[in-house]
């Protein structure tokens, strides 16, 4: 399953009460080690409830410094946000994520009392998705179009992030709708390399305002289109 697959699904508790759509996925870096990256990110909780726009913009966070009318409005709108801990999840279905218990009204962070996130915590939608990927030589190597999740064999263990998914094949899913599937179809027909491409999270070196890799981009098998444009067109122009 991919991370963006969670976004937009509704959370429903055991009584069938709709708790709102999922806006983001909180990750904590305490999973099993992966490659040279070290400890992997695993899902800690799902952030849901209320409209999504402010979460998408990051306006619900306390650290944002204004402008005042915006932060005031969005903090109010998002006062009802809930963070559902992974251990509360019963099933992940086509349209909804179902919880194993009935959520008492007013409960903000069900199931997380014994497992507060500590250390390296990121909101994946806000801080990882759509970020620029930079390779080891400082060259741009695409965007984080999605993240690939690996589920554990042990019950109740949260899935961990194992790969960055990128390219039109993944982007088309994110765009969604008829346009998204059209882009996916067209690209699927013309592309020579499999799309979407996956880059193991094990070669991620650093996460900042961009995602830095420990390898050069040419070793990743993701530069097909760039190579094609270069060899067929750009390198034929003098002075390239």
């Amino acid at each position, binding site marked *: 399953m991919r991370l963006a697959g969670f976004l937009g699904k509704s959370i429903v508790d055991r009584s069938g009460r709709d708790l709102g759509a999922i806006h983001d996925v909180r990750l904590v870096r305490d999973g099993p080690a992966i490659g040279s990256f070290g400890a992997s990110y695993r899902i800690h909780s799902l952030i849901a409830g209320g409209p999504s726009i402010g979460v998408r913009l990051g306006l619900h966070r306390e650290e944002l*410094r*204004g402008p005042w009318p*915006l932060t005031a409005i969005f903090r109010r709108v998002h006062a009802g946000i809930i963070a559902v801990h992974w251990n509360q999840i019963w099933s992940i279905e086509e349209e909804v994520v179902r919880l194993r218990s009935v959520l008492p009204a007013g409960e903000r962070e069900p199931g997380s009392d014994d497992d507060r996130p500590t250390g390296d915590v990121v909101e994946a939608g806000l801080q990882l998705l*759509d970020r620029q990927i930079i390779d080891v030589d400082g060259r741009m190597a695409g*965007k984080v179009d999605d993240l690939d999740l690996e589920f554990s064999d042990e019950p109740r263990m949260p899935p961990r992030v194992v790969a960055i998914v990128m390219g039109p094949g993944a982007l088309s899913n994110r765009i969604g709708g008829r346009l998204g599937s059209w882009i996916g179809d067209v690209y699927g027909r013309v592309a020579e390399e499999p799309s979407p491409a996956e880059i193991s999270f094990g070669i991620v070196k650093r996460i900042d305002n961009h995602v830095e890799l420990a390898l050069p981009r040419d070793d990743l098998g993701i530069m097909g289109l760039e190579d094609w444009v270069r060899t067929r067109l750009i390198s034929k122009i003098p*002075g390239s």
Partner: protein
Amino acid sequence: MKKFFEIFLGILTAFGGFVDIGDLVANAETGARFGMSLAWVVVIGVIGIVLFAEMSGRVAAISGRPVFDVIRERLGARVALADLVASFLINFLTLAAEIGGLALVLQLATDLNYLLWVPLAAVAVWIVIWKLSFSLMEKIFGITGLLLVVTAVALWRLDPDWGRLLSDAAHPGPPATEKWPTYLFFAVALLGAAMTPYEVFFFSSGAVEEHWTRRDLMVNRANVYLGFPLGGLLSLAIMAGAAVVLRPRGISADHLSQMALPVAVGLGKVGLAILYVGMFAAIFSAALETALSAGYTVAQYLGWQWGKYVRPREASRFHLVVLVSIVASLGLVLTTIDPIKLTEYSIVLSAAALPLTYFPILVVANDPQYVDEYVNSRPTNVVGFAYLVLLLVVSIATIPLMIWTRVGA
């Protein structure tokens, strides 16, 4: 000393590169029709672009993220795609307008039909992008654009009734011959001319091209706080020249030749020659900026390598987008569409599209994850929020005004 010189050059570049075909057309037309009664919009537009460019330059210097990276990160893949399509199309119209404008200047200088000059202008723009380094290209044309100071000198030589100009400027509202909707439509056009989105795409990408860091925040501020307002003064000089020379004689400014009249009257042939060179350089610099912005926006949305700090072969897709955009805009101008009309459409639509780029930047300029401690100050946020509201109102009002006034006819 080197730093000082660099800052000084940066200011001159921002100054000389401020005016483009949009500013020339909008300011001359409004001066000829409304006198100085719309001068206040130029002031609002200049303050707006100063605010907008300063935030985007600061975000780029501290976080390394240019405007369209931020748009995608904050609006998500889907909404950002709609934003990209709108921004790209408007930027494309602007590029075509600049290339058409270059050809018009060449027609004025040579008396050869502008359509003959269009392909040459387009090829010249592409060659400069392909060959020249970023900072050289930016400085050569920006600084040559300073020759437009001739518009201010001509105005001074015309010795107008300054008190009258000032009192006109201090009394907003349409003159007796014009209606309110037309007046407001031209207000939108002036705002769009001063605050064109490509300026910010280019400015923030330029910060990355030149590897700005927090040490360059000083350069950012100097460029924006000094260079842009000085450029804005030239806009006002063009407007005042038209108000003094064209308006009393009932001449409208539908052609570049009429827009050049105030300088011709004030300074004669030599002034006119200087004006042509200045216009050519200033419009050329805008053509470079819009052509590069076509590549910047697409590449930044998709994560491709972009920029002139690497060889073209290392940013092939970026250069392909730039090349295709130039060729397509050449095609558009060759349809014999009036470049002045094209300019009017491009600036008005630019104004309508401003919130698409302004809003994400305003949010991120407040986010310590991007700018560390360099978040917006409180006064910046007060003004910044007021502009958000203003730009939203303009954006909603633009299309109805366009239809109502039949594009300012």
